[in-house]
């Protein structure tokens, strides 16, 4: 704040206005002719193809995809976890009880400490939307998806997503997101290519991802 009372905020805004008065181009509409935008529907792929593509792209990331019926979620989840010797599993506070079969030790998130989260074997959550083209899954951290740290510290992530939640393109996915809520997009495990362009998976964040794809 300079002595005259002009703040940097004032100064920067004034510079912007002067610059735009001098040099701004004409107003223009945003041309939205890309796939999935507004009235331009994505290609006429049927639901089966879309879900098939979603599965393929997840496989490219070495994520396992298991198709289940709704009444099979709990049993299948327990089977997967125990087969991988993952016993201590964190779940969000709003995670459906019906998803928790006997076998693993289910730890509900009630402000769990970082130390606890660091020591569990995995996390299981719901999801908000899946994007087939990129094999991405978006969470909006609602009751069944949990705080962001839950899907960050554990080394294994099990995501339960319904076929009805899978769309083909990113614009379609955005149409389903609530702009007022936080979003985290996952597209495979963390990765780096910083050393000689060799792609290494699993830097920080879960290295292993399994997806339960729920069909009605």
């Amino acid at each position, binding site marked *: 704040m300079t002595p005259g009372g002009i703040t940097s905020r004032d100064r920067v805004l004034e510079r912007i206005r002067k610059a735009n008065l001098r040099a701004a181009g004409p107003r223009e509409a*945003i041309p939205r002719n890309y796939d999935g935008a507004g009235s331009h529907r994505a290609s006429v792929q049927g639901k089966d193809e879309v879900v098939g593509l979603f599965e393929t792209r997840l496989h490219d990331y070495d994520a396992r995809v298991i198709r289940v019926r709704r009444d099979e979620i709990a049993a299948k989840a327990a089977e997967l976890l125990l087969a991988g010797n993952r016993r201590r599993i964190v779940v969000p506070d709003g995670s459906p009880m019906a998803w928790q079969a006997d076998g693993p030790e289910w730890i509900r998130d009630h402000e769990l400490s970082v130390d606890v989260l660091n020591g569990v074997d995995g996390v299981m959550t719901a999801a908000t939307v899946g994007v087939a083209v990129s094999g*991405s899954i978006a969470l909006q951290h609602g009751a069944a998806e949990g705080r962001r740290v839950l899907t960050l510290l554990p080394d294994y992530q099990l995501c339960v997503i319904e076929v009805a939640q899978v769309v083909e393109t990113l614009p379609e996915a955005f149409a389903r997101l609530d702009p007022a809520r936080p979003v985290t997009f996952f597209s495979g495990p*963390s990765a780096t290519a910083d050393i000689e362009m060799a792609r*290494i998976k699993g*830097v*920080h964040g879960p290295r292993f991802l399994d997806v339960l794809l729920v069909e009605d």
Partner: protein
Amino acid sequence: MSLVQIERGSHEARAHDAHTLDPRTASPFPAAAKIDLRDTQLRRNVARATDTIQRKRAALVEEKTDWQALRDAGAAIRREALTNLDRYLLEFEERFQAAGGTVHWAANASEANRIVLGILREHEASEVIKIKSMTTAEIGLNDFLARHDVAAYETDLAELILQLGDDQPSHIVVPALHKNRQQVREIFARTMGLPDLTDDPEALTAAARRYLREKFLRVKTAICGGNFLIAETGGLAIVESEGNGRMCLTLPETLIAIVGIEKVIPRFADLEVLLQTLPRSATGERMNPYNSIWSGVVPGDGPKNMHVVLLDNGRTRVLRDAIGRQTLQCIRCGACQNACPVYRQTGGHAYGSVYAGPIGAILTPQLEDMRYAQSLPYASSLCGACYEVCPVKINIPEVLVHLRARVVDRGRRKLASLFDQERAGMMMMAAVFANRSRYEAAQRLARTAQRAVRHGDAWYHWLPGMAGRWTETRDLAPLPQQTFREWWQQRGQP
């Protein structure tokens, strides 16, 4: 620096300059390039890295049948943001603060640094973890913090390598691409105390993962940049691959984001375009591993103290130039660097700026109001490959030529220009081209002059002065005995 030293010790020679990514003190591009061109390791690494990303990008672009539509939309979105920049920044500020965050405005780099330090002092923080941010490199934040007894730990693998190895980034997206695995192993073994560490990239990454985990769980304050600010929701978007970003924006109590004012986009839904073009352009992926979008403070989830520092630092200067302002559309994907045949030969350090390659060549001089980095607009053969790949359609060649004119026009006002060889030559040629008789006389004069030094068809292996730069590596054919127009006039009308 002796010739022998340049030939043999280019690593040492470069390390000497390695800290100079300050355009005010960096060597002009031709001089810096000359040194880096002799680093065979660097050239191999840069070529491999850029080829790899280019190949992946090309495959994905071919697959994306609406790619041009996405570029058109992305360019229009970015232009709209700039045209209404004040409005969108104010909208962002209101919504971000309504969500419990705090917005600060920094007119320049030193103010931004002071604001950050102020927040750190408020929370008695003597160490911070950082997500890679070009903006923080631009303002020299780490050095500033170090001078004020605050330790800043880089958490991106490449930035970690550079920090522990006391080096500088050479690429926007793959900053340590000039380093090979043996060099990384040596750095980690020494600084992390791991003498038995191998140079296998998996092992190196695992070492970094363990080393950083300790910091993520302990340090309470984080500093980051921002890929996008969203006006409509007061949102911040962080695009990353390694997960260190999510660590920094989830675990600490305080998060400070330093973001250039040009990063704002109007609507949440605009991300549906940019999150398609950015990952494909930057790393040749359909989507990068993690994207985090949120606004202000998320209750019970993440930092309690959220700060955004909006940085001008010359951006409003760029905005003033009708042709140059498109530079601010940049979303920092690095595709132009990967496509650039000049960058391919030199890597990033030669540009003497945090921003290298084609985007650096147009952004850096403009941020400095054309007082510095004047050699950068000339560090290009104007091939146009950058424009072709830019996801937001910045016409980089157009801006490069425009900035050359600004450099020349600055020079015109100076007395020294009267003695400038290039300017004299250009003025003379303009006069020669101005009319036919002068032009034909000049052609004849050149031929006459040549007869004095040349016989027959012998090519030139050496020429004096500026022309000698050609003959250092290339021969030059002698002027033909007859110009086209002489031939034409001789043949008469057919």
